[in-house]
């Protein structure tokens, strides 16, 4: 910092340096950074649990941890990763930073609520962390009854309270996005000019608002049932344990689209920027986000084919599961078509895009195996499922998240990072990821159940491969942590628009000034108007 020749122009980072100016900030950009720190912390926590899991599974015998410890490891891994890392990851960091900028607003509609949502998130996180430190919880991230209500003697209530609280953070973020997108667009920023990133965040926000409260009440009822022995989910008292599964998946299936939709938005931006070309079929990509969000609410029963749910309900959920795959297909094909006649460059964010497409293909297409009732019977609750959801959640979404971070990093921090290291990390992650999770498909079809502390010896070789991959993957994730930190303090100054991209966020200095734009923007063109200057029509 001391080497800067001319005094830096005033921006949101250097206007104030006190801790208080951060902790009481209402600037969406600073809140995004607060979130970034929280999320990275929980990713590291979840990652440590994952390493514990993988180390234990190196050998068939349960020799590293007690069974109970292992069960707590995967539960807390799932809880930390899903509720405290992946759900908020892209929306709360990149979304928070970019939604107002992309539509030309000075801030989100409710800045105080935005700050509140971060505090709510952290408080929820602390509850869950406290539960982990006090001895942990062992129900699996799904909290199935009656195990969670009547059998487990771990900190279910404390964890549940943490999840419940963090749900409100998600609701507040979604609410803020929807209101902002509706009421704060700059003059000329009509709906058909919105960047696709905005569309996908809008769609994800709908899910946050309409889904989250249902899982909140489900978890609340679990807590009440544990505390007061009310019988809503307890078959011994006349309740129905499967009702809990309905309530849980009513949210948790759409929630997987909360995890992937913002990532898809990132990919649309990146594909356009690095092919210097408007996204093919803008309208289809935009509306497919809404399609995924809405149809996503109709398919939850595909998690319950063998739960004793009625076969007819299963049929309904199965056919709808297949229809929700179509909007995803539309997106993939349109991204591919966007590359056609583009001007494609291969900076690190684009490498992540290629990674995303590859891993999302595997993850999404394996979803089709699970939607088929007859096939899901065999692979349900095996490592096939574990592999499927890591491909979509970790493979696809984290690739998108990393791609987005690399793409907007210069805007967020005003600094560049080392391109060489960035490419190295991207490749390491890709290789490590596939090595970790591809063998799990095979394991799953062989029949290795999930949540198994010990397993029959014939499964060992594939598990060793997986653990080896996880090590590579861990390194791949640690490297960006290092060069990003370095870049934040020491990196070369970034220009306003290092990629030559369109979009309002690139038309303001890096890092942006306090209220985002020095002059209020007026929009006159659709998104991604690349060829406009040398248009041949």
């Amino acid at each position: 910092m001391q080497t800067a020749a001319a005094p830096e122009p005033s921006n949101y980072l250097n206007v104030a340096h006190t801790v208080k100016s951060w902790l009481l900030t209402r600037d969406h950009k600073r809140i995004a950074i607060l979130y970034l720190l929280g999320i990275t912390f929980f990713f590291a926590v979840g990652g440590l649990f994952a390493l514990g899991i993988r180390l234990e599974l190196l050998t068939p015998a349960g020799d590293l941890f007690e069974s109970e410890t292992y069960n707590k490891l995967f539960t807390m891994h799932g809880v930390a990763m899903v509720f405290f890392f992946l759900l908020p990851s892209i929306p709360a960091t990149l979304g928070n930073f970019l939604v107002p900028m992309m539509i030309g607003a000075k801030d989100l509609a409710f800045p105080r609520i935005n700050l509140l949502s971060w505090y709510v998130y952290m408080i929820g996180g602390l509850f869950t962390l406290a539960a982990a430190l006090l001895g942990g919880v062992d129900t699996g991230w799904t909290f199935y009854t009656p195990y969670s209500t009547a059998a487990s003697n771990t900190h279910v209530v404390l964890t549940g309270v943490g999840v419940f609280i963090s749900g409100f953070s998600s609701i507040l973020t979604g609410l803020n996005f929807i209101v902002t997108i509706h009421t704060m667009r700059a003059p000329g920023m009509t709906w058909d000019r919105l960047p696709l990133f905005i569309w996908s965040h809008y769609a994800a926000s709908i899910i946050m608002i309409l889904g989250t409260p249902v899982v909140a009440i489900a978890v609340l009822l679990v807590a009440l049932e544990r505390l007061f022995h009310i019988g809503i989910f307890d078959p011994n008292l006349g309740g129905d344990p499967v009702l809990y599964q309905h309530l849980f998946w009513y949210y948790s299936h759409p929630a997987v689209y909360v995890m992937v939709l913002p990532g898809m938005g990132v990919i649309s931006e990146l594909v356009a920027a690095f092919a210097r070309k408007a996204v093919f079929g803008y309208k289809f990509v935009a509306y497919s986000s809404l399609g995924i969000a809405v149809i996503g609410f109709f398919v939850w029963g595909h998690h319950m084919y063998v739960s004793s749910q009625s076969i007819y309900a299963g049929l309904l959920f199965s056919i709808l599961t297949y229809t929700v795959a179509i909007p995803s297909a539309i997106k993939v094909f349109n991204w591919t078509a966007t590359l056609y006649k583009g001007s494609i460059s291969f900076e690190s964010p684009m490498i992540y895009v290629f990674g995303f497409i590859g891993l999302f293909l595997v993850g999404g297409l394996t979803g089709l195996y699970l939607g088929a009732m007859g096939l899901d019977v065999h692979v349900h609750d095996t490592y096939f499922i574990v592999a499927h959801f890591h491909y979509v959640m970790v493979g696809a979404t984290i690739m998108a998240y990393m791609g987005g971070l690399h793409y907007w990093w210069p805007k967020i921090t005003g600094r560049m990072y080392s391109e060489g290291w960035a490419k190295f990390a991207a490749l390491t992650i890709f290789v490590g990821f596939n090595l970790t999770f591809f063998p799990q498909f095979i394991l799953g079809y062989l029949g290795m159940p999930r949540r198994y502390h010990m397993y029959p010896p014939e499964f060992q070789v594939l598990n060793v491969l997986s653990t080896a991959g996880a090590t590579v993957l861990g390194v791949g994730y640690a490297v960006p942590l290092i060069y990003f930190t370095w870049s934040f303090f020491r990196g070369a100054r970034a220009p306003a628009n290092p990629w030559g991209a369109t979009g309002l966020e690139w038309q303001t200095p890096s890092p942006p000034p306090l209220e985002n734009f020095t002059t209020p923007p007026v929009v006159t063109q659709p998104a991604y108007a690349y060829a406009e200057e040398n248009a041949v029509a």
Partner: protein
Amino acid sequence: MVEHTQHVAPVRLYVVVFLALLVLTFLTVGVTYVDMGEYNLFVALGIAIFKASLVILYFMHARWSPRLVQIVMLTSLLFIGILASFSFADYLTRGLLGVPGR
């Protein structure tokens, strides 16, 4: 896009709505003393829906609210409907196949 300033409803309207709600409350208690079999439930629900609509339309000004607000309202109802109908797609068809647990 800017809406004109808020709609201020006349006090008289509020009084009328209140009285209607009061009457409906007595009505809903009253009809439980009439045995209509299964229809008791539907009558009670019908009255409740009617009362809720009055509150929403007049006390909450939904009648004069922007379209978007009305859409939000209807959407939330729709999604409750999805939750209920799809869960009941399970409960109502259990046992239909005549094979336990299917």
